[in-house]
């Protein structure tokens, strides 16, 4: 679906000093290479200014790359922008493609004409979205009066009316409350699995990734730092897991082989046992622990995805320093 090779984009940025105006070149995307197969769901994450939005603008044909090769659905985006636009959907979390003063329904009707969707397809797709996203109660409300959560549901519907093969979402859950986020994620997961729509989403909310994207790409300073299944990245970057046990009676932590560190709290009622993912399984550990002490409750804690990404950045920094 997407094929990107050694993609670069430079910007000239004006730096004014008195009356003199100088330009310096900033590389926003610096040799990015990746593929996305049809039907995949890929999370594209990185800090602000990492080059995510620039990549998306190039994928949708709005920006022309400085160099490198892009194909989206076998099409060169910037050369065949209009053909491509009919086949992809884009949602920018911080921008709106709906008409501010028109009722939601009228925006959809306009989009139907712009994308030349047949009346029958339009009816069917719209009904489906109305049903799954619960749009009915505000379909006739002007967009300016919608809450952010309602508007985002409208935005996603707007991007799906022409049944795109690829849906690109730029921070779709930004600013939404937990319930709205969950509803959106559920819907997106559904269209990904059921319709086979390829998803590419950028986000700062890592729950989006955890929930939606089997594959994660991490970008910083315009370069891809890591690309792979979330589980693999987690195993590679953060080799430690943690077993938390609550004892019935306060006591010392059990001494179990394979545990590399112990942290206790609540006067010995709760102990955090750190262990190596590669060396010990949680099951082995638990068997050992319950043999030694009387356990009230226990839980295995995976490192937060934030930690994974923070470590990836850190690793990149260390490499840069060494070089």
């Amino acid at each position, binding site marked *: 679906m997407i094929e990107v090779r050694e993609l670069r984009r430079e*910007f000239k940025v004006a730096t004014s000093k008195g009356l003199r105006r100088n330009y310096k070149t900033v590389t926003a995307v610096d040799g990015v290479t990746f593929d996305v197969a049809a039907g995949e769901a890929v999370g594209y994450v990185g800090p*602000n*200014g990492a080059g995510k*939005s620039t990549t998306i*603008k190039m994928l*949708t*044909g*709005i*920006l*022309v790359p400085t160099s490198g090769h892009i194909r989206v659905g076998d099409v060169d985006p910037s050369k065949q*922008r*209009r*053909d491509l*636009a*009919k086949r992809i959907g*884009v949602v*920018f979390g*911080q*921008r*709106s*493609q709906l008409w501010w003063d028109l009722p939601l329904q009228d925006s959809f009707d306009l989009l139907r004409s*712009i*994308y030349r969707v047949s009346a029958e397809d339009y009816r069917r797709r719209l009904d489906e979205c109305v049903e799954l996203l619960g749009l009915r109660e505000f379909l006739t409300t002007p967009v300016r009066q919608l809450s952010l959560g309602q508007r985002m549901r409208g935005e996603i519907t707007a991007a799906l009316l022409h049944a795109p093969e690829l849906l690109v979402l730029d921070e779709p859950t930004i600013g939404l409350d937990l319930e709205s986020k969950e509803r959106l994620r559920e819907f997106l997961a559904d269209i990904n699995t059921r319709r086979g729509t390829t998803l590419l989403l950028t986000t700062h909310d890592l729950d989006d990734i955890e929930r939606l994207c089997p594959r994660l790409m991490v970008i910083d300073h315009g370069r891809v730092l890591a690309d792979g299944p979330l589980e693999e990245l987690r195993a590679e970057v953060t080799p430690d897991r943690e077993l938390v046990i609550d004892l019935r009676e306060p006591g010392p932590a059990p001494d179990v082989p394979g545990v590399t560190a112990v942290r206790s709290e609540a006067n010995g009622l709760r102990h955090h046992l750190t262990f190596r993912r590669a060396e010990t399984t949680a099951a082995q550990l638990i068997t050992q622990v319950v043999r030694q002490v009387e356990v009230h409750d226990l839980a295995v804690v995976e490192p937060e995805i934030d930690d994974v990404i923070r470590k990836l950045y850190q690793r990149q920094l260390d490499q840069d320093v060494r070089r």
Partner: protein
Amino acid sequence: MLAGMTANVVFGLLRAAVLVAALRAANGEIADYGIAATNTYVWIGQGLLGFILLWGTNELAERVRSGDVVVDLYRPWHLQSALLAQDLGRGGYAFLTRLAPPMAFGMLLFPFQFPADAVQWPLFLVSAVIALVISFACRFLIDVSAFWLVDNRGLYGFWNVTSGLLCGLTVPVAFFPGWAREVLWMTPFPALMQSPIDVFLGHGDPLRTLLHQVFWAVALLAAGHLALQRAVRKVVVQGG
């Protein structure tokens, strides 16, 4: 809408009064404009002003400035054509609410010079629509300049101040000295307002007037198309 109409009519009354006073001082006629022709000129001008939307809203430029223009750019359309279609639609509405009322007002209450030949009516309509297209093309060019200037309000302000004078809104182009008239007719400005009025009043050869308009409509639309294409290739889209 009603407030707009009232303001429009009040300004029409003021302009008619001033111009008629000037005519009286000049023995009743200046450059083919008698009392009836002058009143006709004023009321058509008042109507065309809202119809062609000489002073626009700078909306696209604002979208360029904020970066929202990305949404307009990834749609499967030719942005300039889409916006032109939108402006023509607006023109259809403005025909009923902005063009017809002041003209009817003038016809009913003032000495009015109706076309001598019935064919001038449809020609006037054609000329007015081309004027709208030219007005759109000019506003589009100013809007697109925002891709380079980021903030083009200065340019817009300049347009707002000069266009009224140069297009024949303030006084008929025929009132200018000979050399200025010649220079003006080499620009698109008279085609915005003076041309449809000339066609209605039967001043000059209507076909020549229309050809001049068509030339500028095509040239300015083409310039806008090229400018947008260049803007999209060369220029940064603002914001993350």
